[in-house]
């Protein structure tokens, strides 16, 4: 099986550690994942803001980059949803039958990470170790657009050492919503503030989700509040092991303020 990683533009530029975690995790499970260098973005920022014409060349880049793979794995419910449900709309709009046909190939082969692990690889215990108090936020697109159901939960429950606590009002949107976070910043922040409050109520030290864009939003609020809660992508928790946990004071720490370059 030829498996490609679709890193997503946000992870590529802002959260490379999530991509590294996916690579490490999949290799550990025996999947030699490829990173097609021609990939860029799924086109969702354009589509969801109404710029359908602008999305056409982006979707074209996507289908070209991932042509021929049996599975396209992405650590984002939102981008998987975009590929599966929105690419066909963009392709129709382009009026190019070749693009419509290419999308019909890539769309059904695109999997969000937890779907790929549970449905394609058939594993729930990925051999992870993460001795922390964790709460999980099911992001809207993974929950309602893709219907990943309790797959992420199954995966987290099998992690050794984890203390998984329920998030109140878990299924309510965090308020990120792509360009909504900027166009309707006040409403977005009001929604995020309630999500952050529920997160704090759990007493968890780590908030986990399958979309870094939502985590960037809630995590940004938690950070501003000095809440003492960090956010982590599901992939990074699943990639953690006894070895990686021993290496640093906390799991998968990124660059620290002031000690870069």
């Amino acid at each position, binding site marked *: 099986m030829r498996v490609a990683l679709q890193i997503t533009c946000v992870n*590529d530029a802002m959260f*490379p550690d999530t991509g590294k975690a996916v690579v*490490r995790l999949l290799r550990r499970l025996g999947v030699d994942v490829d990173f097609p260098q*021609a990939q*860029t*973005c799924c086109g969702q920022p354009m589509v969801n803001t109404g*710029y359908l014409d602008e999305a056409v060349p982006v979707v074209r880049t996507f289908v070209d980059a991932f042509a021929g793979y049996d599975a396209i794995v992405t650590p984002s419910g939102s981008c998987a949803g975009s590929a599966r449900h929105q690419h066909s709309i963009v392709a129709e709009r382009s009026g190019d039958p070749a693009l419509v046909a290419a999308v019909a190939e890539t769309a059904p082969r695109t999997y969000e990470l937890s779907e790929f692990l549970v449905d394609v690889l058939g594993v729930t215990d990925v051999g992870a170790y993460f001795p922390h108090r964790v709460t999980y936020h099911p992001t809207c697109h993974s929950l309602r657009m893709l219907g990943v159901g309790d797959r992420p939960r199954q995966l987290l429950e099998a992690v050794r050492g984890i203390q998984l606590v329920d998030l109140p009002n878990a299924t309510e949107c965090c308020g990120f919503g792509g360009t*909504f976070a900027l166009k309707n910043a006040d409403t977005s922040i009001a929604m995020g503030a309630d999500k952050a409050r529920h997160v704090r109520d759990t007493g968890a030290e780590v908030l986990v989700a399958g979309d870094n864009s939502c985590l960037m939003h809630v995590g*940004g*609020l938690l950070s501003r509040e000095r809440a003492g809660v960090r956010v982590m992508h599901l992939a990074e928790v699943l990639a953690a092991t006894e070895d990686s946990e021993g290496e640093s004071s906390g799991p998968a720490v990124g660059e620290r303020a002031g000690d870069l370059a």
Partner: protein
Amino acid sequence: MNGTFVGMPAFPTAAREALADTQLRRNLAHATRTIRDKRAAVVAEVEDWEDLRLAGAGVKEAALRDLATHLETLEASLTRAGATVHWARDAEEACAIVAAVTKAHGADEVVKVKSMATAEIGLNEALEAEGIAAWETDLAELIVQLGEDLPSHILVPAIHRNRAEVREIFLRRMGAVGRPAPADLTDEPAVLAGAAREHLREKFLRAKVAVSGANFVVADTGTLVVVESEGNGRMCLTLPEVLVSVVGIEKVVATWSDLDPMLRLLPRSSTGERMNPYTSTWSGVTAGDGPQEVHVVLLDNGRTRALADDVGRQALRCIRCSACLNVCPVYERVGGHAYGSVYPGPIGAILNPLLNGVSDEQTASLPYASSLCGACFEVCPVRIDIPSVLVDQRAAVVDSHRDDRVPKAEAVAMKAAAWTFSDSRRLAWAEKASGLAGRVMGRFSRRTMPGGRAAAGRLPGPAAGWTGARDLPAPPAESFREWWDRTDGGRDGSAR
């Protein structure tokens, strides 16, 4: 009047004001949660709920597909049953018809059953201009009308008021328009309802003309259906001599048996009841029983415009249950007024642009008033894929600006992003630049985010909307792509 309150600011501005209203926030959070939980409980009782939703969507879809035929059948069956059918292209025509019928009977007042269609066309204001008083008889509508307020919810238009405010409104305003509220009025819900009952009873018994809408109209039998909870509708529909019903053309269903799924879906989705207390149906005139003159005004007012929209057409399936409002996290926080229309919430965010077009700024802001979380689609009894229609209406807004001489900053940014994302080499350059910026930001950063990453500090321009309230991690020094290149995808042993 097009169902949109005139002169309202665009959504983000109106929302900002609403978000600062602490009383509103609390009322809404409490009220929406209560209805939401009730709905969830009664929906869970129905084993084949998903099949029922499919059936409901199917009934409405079939009716819309052949709308012209069904409307002709309806006109014939209504006429046969003794009703007079009027066709109104827009709000103005519809209001003029209602005013003319009222005046023909020498009446200077009408009693009203709560109806979204008459709110949409601004009927009360139009009648007032003709010297005709229109009395709302639904409790919440009465509160809104007496308070000289705007409705903020489809089903519970006074959701933004609490009982202390309602008592105040009753005491202050009832006397001016009829029987005053008793001086010892308390804020007990039952006492408030009792005062409204006394006040309204006088109007029911006096009025010669009643005005209603309809939840459904059955083409083959010429039957109108009104679903309600308080019994005020039954009074309006049976006591006055003359009944005028204003009905959007999308309310038609083909046959009597089509009502079956609809009448099961509506109460559970709407009030969270298994069955609503009152369902009234009438077909034309019955000698010696009920109104002896029956008029039906079939209203277009933008509906044929929506019908012509391939993606948006499904919005015409809407049965105005308001389930989508109650689950919407945006609506829950900003309330109905921010949408500037009698149709607020997710359905309003698609219906207003579909009915009216997106040429004015306020309407054009509505499709963006959503995080696209999809909670609305999940509960909609007729399976309207609201998120997809929202995205499609956003495209309509963008397309309407494609010929602008000076493009919006956003359009320029999106074109630039599309250019970058169309070729991975361009993206790699952009990421190199962001990595350099990240190194610099990291040096200057005085904030460490939980977990150890440096924060980017407050940014200027559009990004200020982000960093005003949210920390943003500084971009990492190396993108994933660069890491993959440098380490051969981690195969050189540096996978961490």
